[in-house]
């Protein structure tokens, strides 16, 4: 079929001059679609069938060229989650230092094929006004450069860990670094230094490398969810995750980040911007200014018993989710073991190890702090932070932790749930009247438009038993799956430095991105606005502490900072930049997104809106390759057909791919004996209309949910928990295969999905007389490794069953040697999705 270089394309273009619009609808644009890892070939097959053209597949995505006229077909594909149109690629960007890289990224905007991208975008979304694909006056490259560097502070969770470490080693150490405005920095610096000395720490060399401990889950996360920023080594310095992210999924991301990051959480996000103009009163660099001596940041707080439990930073801008996480980290102190649910193994261990020595010094430090002279804010800050940590580490019981954790999980979601872009969430709330813990997590949430890459999936998520309730109840499937994935302590490893996936949804700093001239004068107002929205993104300045203190109970969400004060030009589309970064770079995704966003503002003058945006620009940095694309899906396609979710609901895209593997033909019967919420039957009924689908389940709830889902589909149209255990599987799988063999005719195909590969392989081997393995795929579902098996029923008969007839056909099916049976063409496909995971402990 037509390939981009095919001369027939030219003729196509010539002959299809439509009057519909000035667009040449046969113009090809490059589309990239994300696919569940493992199913790329499947998706590729679908794309080839639908579009008749060559399709490239790489990990987690497929790429091919689509004429504008067929763009809408892309969104109807069953095997892909998210789609985007690629408008620029740089295969070898040759990254260098931070400033230079970011500046070059900004300059790159001139090379981006906005025209094609915007045409494609318009075909899908439509916009009342025309959007110029380039400004009237094209800025020079120099004008575009306005590097924005985001410094995020690590999560309190790790902060604890780190602090504890430090404390064990002599917390009285002062660091040369200037203390942060809230004095928290001191602690951070201190911890950072300590941290840097620790071998188990993050790879410091890779600035902003997304870290994380769980590279595989990272990947899963990256692919399937839009995550908040990952914290890299440099993030140690000043990270405040909470502040930075602005999305509906902030909380979730925070939770995820907590679990992922092992870095210290400095209290506030500090925006470091190196401006060329001199509007900033002083060069703001990474070091935050000291609070003025008159500012007594700590003592008053101490009086408040409640606040004592908070991290110093929380005093200023409490984040309930942080709180919970902090609390949750207390556990390690209680037992020497790493609590698998929360921390990275290495950190936990060290945390736990240091827990003991801390407690003794606790009170003394505390007291000393009270009496300390505010002038010696550094020492005071340190001591205070230390004592607070101690308090925190000791004072919570696991029950309170549970409560808090659940609280965390349940509270924040309300925001995302209400999100407009997430109809599923709402629908779920209505349709699914069983707000049980186990079943709440499946809110598809993905809408996460902010999320880069792939939407969060309501996937079978891996839940740690202890945190099961809390995490599950998070409406965002993303968080559930991510947390689950992240929480695997076995996979935690801080050493992984190469595959750091750094996803960041960042709003280009409004402040830096605005006209620079305005910054100085507006900063105060800006900050006020910022602080109103509560955000940890702040330009450091002496005034900030006050403002921040003022806001106490606001969620840490960086909302679109542009408040109504600015009138928005309705003719300009709102945009956001989302950056996914994999590899070692001198900058982090937050900075990249912010910088690129700043360039976009300079170039197009489009307003920024992290939540209610029109255009989402994706900046994907995969080691040396940089790709700029425009998102064609606001929310992932993967929960398209589901309304009611259960603990094992599969993403529709996974179901679709599994069904494809079965090569269903017209008139086939499709049976899912363990259908749960009927994701598979529904997907098959919708896409293979010439077949008859059976679904069954032994659980009442499943039946109810199935009924709900089907009703919803019928009304027209409009998603990970894992159940089971390996021990159960050892008996279940052989039984399952035997039963399936009993009811399947020779030649029937079965497609099974499980995490418990070994059990299934054993079962297949022991029943090899009846089932032959035809295909085995490794798929990545929400960070968990799943295996898809396609089996073929042999012609062997089953002994032991006196049953002569099983599946009814016009010829008595005797799984014995009835020749009649074999003479008929047999096309019964059985699809079973079995999500089985052993709980982690």
């Amino acid at each position, binding site marked *: 079929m037509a390939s981009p270089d095919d001369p027939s394309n030219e003729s196509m273009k010539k002959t299809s001059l439509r009057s519909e619009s000035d667009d040449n609808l046969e113009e090809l644009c490059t589309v990239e679609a994300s696919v569940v890892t493992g199913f790329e070939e499947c998706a590729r097959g679908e794309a080839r069938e639908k579009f008749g053209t060559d399709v490239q597949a790489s990990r987690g995505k497929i790429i091919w060229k689509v004429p504008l006229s067929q763009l809408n077909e892309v969104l109807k594909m069953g095997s892909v989650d998210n789609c985007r149109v690629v408008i620029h690629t740089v295969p070898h960007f040759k990254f260098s230092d931070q400033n230079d890289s970011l500046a070059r990224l900004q300059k790159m905007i001139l090379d981006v094929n906005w025209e094609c991208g915007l045409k494609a975008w318009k075909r899908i979304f439509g916009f009342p006004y025309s959007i110029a694909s380039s400004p009237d006056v094209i800025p020079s490259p120099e004008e575009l450069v306005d590097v924005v560097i985001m410094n995020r502070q690590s999560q309190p969770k790790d902060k604890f860990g780190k602090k504890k470490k430090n404390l064990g080693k002599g917390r009285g150490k002062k660091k040369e670094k200037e203390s942060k405005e809230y004095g928290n920095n001191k602690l951070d610096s201190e911890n950072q230094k300590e941290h840097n000395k620790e071998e188990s720490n993050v790879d410091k060399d890779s600035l902003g490398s997304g870290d994380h401990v769980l590279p595989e889950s990272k990947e899963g996360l990256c692919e399937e969810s839009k995550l908040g920023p990952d914290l890299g080594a440099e993030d140690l310095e000043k990270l405040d995750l909470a502040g930075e992210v602005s999305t509906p999924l902030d909380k979730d991301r925070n939770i995820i980040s907590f679990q992922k990051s092992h870095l210290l959480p400095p209290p506030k996000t500090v925006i470091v911007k190196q401006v060329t103009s001199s509007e900033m009163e002083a060069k703001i660099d990474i070091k935050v200014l000291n609070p003025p001596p008159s500012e007594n940041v700590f003592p008053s707080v101490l009086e408040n018993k409640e606040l004592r439990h908070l991290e110093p930073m929380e005093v200023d801008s409490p984040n309930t989710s942080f709180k919970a996480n902090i609390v949750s980290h207390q556990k390690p102190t209680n037992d020497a073991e790493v609590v698998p649910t929360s921390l990275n193994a290495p950190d936990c261990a060290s945390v736990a190890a240091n827990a003991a020595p801390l407690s003794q010094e606790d009170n003394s430090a505390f007291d000393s702090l009270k009496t300390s002279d505010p002038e010696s804010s550094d020492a005071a800050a340190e001591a205070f932070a230390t004592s607070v940590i101690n308090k925190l580490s000791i004072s919570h019981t696991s029950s309170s932790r549970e409560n808090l954790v659940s609280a965390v999980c349940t509270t924040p979601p309300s925001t995302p749930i209400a999100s407009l872009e997430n109809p599923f969430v709402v629908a779920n709330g209505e349709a699914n009247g069983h707000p049980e813990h186990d079943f709440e997590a499946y809110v598809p949430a993905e809408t996460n438009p902010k999320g880069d890459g792939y939407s969060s999936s309501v996937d079978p998520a891996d839940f740690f038993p202890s945190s099961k309730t809390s995490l599950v109840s998070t409406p965002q499937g993303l968080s559930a799956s991510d947390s689950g994935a992240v929480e695997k302590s076995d996979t935690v490893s801080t050493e992984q430095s190469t595959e750091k996936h750094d996803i960041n949804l960042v709003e280009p700093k409004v402040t830096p991105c605005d006209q620079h001239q305005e910054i100085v004068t507006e900063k105060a107002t800006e900050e006020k606005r910022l602080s109103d929205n509560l955000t940890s993104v702040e330009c450091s300045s002496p005034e900030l502490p006050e403002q921040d203190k003022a806001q106490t109970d606001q969620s840490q969400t960086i909302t679109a900072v542009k408040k109504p004060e600015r009138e928005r030009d309705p003719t300009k589309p709102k945009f956001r930049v989302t950056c996914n970064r994999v590899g070692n770079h001198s900058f982090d995704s937050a900075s990249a997104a912010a910088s690129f966003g700043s360039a976009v503002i300079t170039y197009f003058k489009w307003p920024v809106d992290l939540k209610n945006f029109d255009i989402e620009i994706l900046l994907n940095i995969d080691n040396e390759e940089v790709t700029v694309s425009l998102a064609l899906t606001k929310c992932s396609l993967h929960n398209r057909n589901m309304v009611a979710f259960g603990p094992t609901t599969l993403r529709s895209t996974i179901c679709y791919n599994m069904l494809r593997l079965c090569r269903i033909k*017209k*008139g086939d*019967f499709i049976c899912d004996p363990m259908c749960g919420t009927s994701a598979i039957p529904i997907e098959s009924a919708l896409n293979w*209309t*010439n077949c*008859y689908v*059976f679904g*069954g389940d*032994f659980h009442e709830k499943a*039946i109810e949910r199935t*009924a709900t889902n089907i009703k919803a589909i019928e009304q027209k149209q409009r998603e990970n928990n894992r159940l089971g255990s390996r021990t159960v599987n050892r008996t279940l799988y052989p039984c399952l295969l035997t039963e399936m063999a009993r009811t399947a005719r020779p030649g029937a195909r079965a497609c099974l999905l499980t995490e418990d590969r070994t059990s299934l392989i054993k079962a297949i081997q022991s029943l090899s007389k009846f089932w032959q393995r035809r295909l085995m795929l490794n798929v990545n579902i929400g960070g968990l490794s799943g295996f898809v098996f396609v089996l073929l029923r042999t012609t062997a008969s089953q002994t032991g*069953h*006196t*049953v*002569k*007839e*099983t*599946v*009814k*056909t*016009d010829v008595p099916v005797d799984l014995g040697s009835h020749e009649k049976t074999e003479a*008929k063409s047999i096309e*019964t496909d059985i699809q079973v999705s079995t999500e089985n995971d052993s709980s982690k402990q």
Partner: protein
Amino acid sequence: MKLITHNMLTSNIIKGVTKGFPLIIAPTKVEVKEVDFNPDFVNKMLTKIDYPALYQAANSVGHGEGLPEQLGDDVKDNTDLLKALHNAMLQVEVIEGDLVCPESGRKFPIANGIPNMLLLENEVET
């Protein structure tokens, strides 16, 4: 429960039962819901179902009109017959009632159109 589904159900799994097909339908509530007619599909399905059982089932729920006692060979082009078959197989639904095992008498209740075929431990052949 559509009659085509009923055509696939058997109680042979119960201990001691060898002739568990077809299950006897004892309906209390039957509905006819419209389904798009697809002749190819109907034809394909005919090769997979047990026609006598379908005939018996359709009559027991009172919707056996138009169905011959035996199927001839020229069904493919006989649109009227196909439509009648389509109706019986896909449109007639038993909403409430019971399925009864012809040998053991075990009842499988149908609620909300969904038959509950779950057996107790002691009923299943080990």
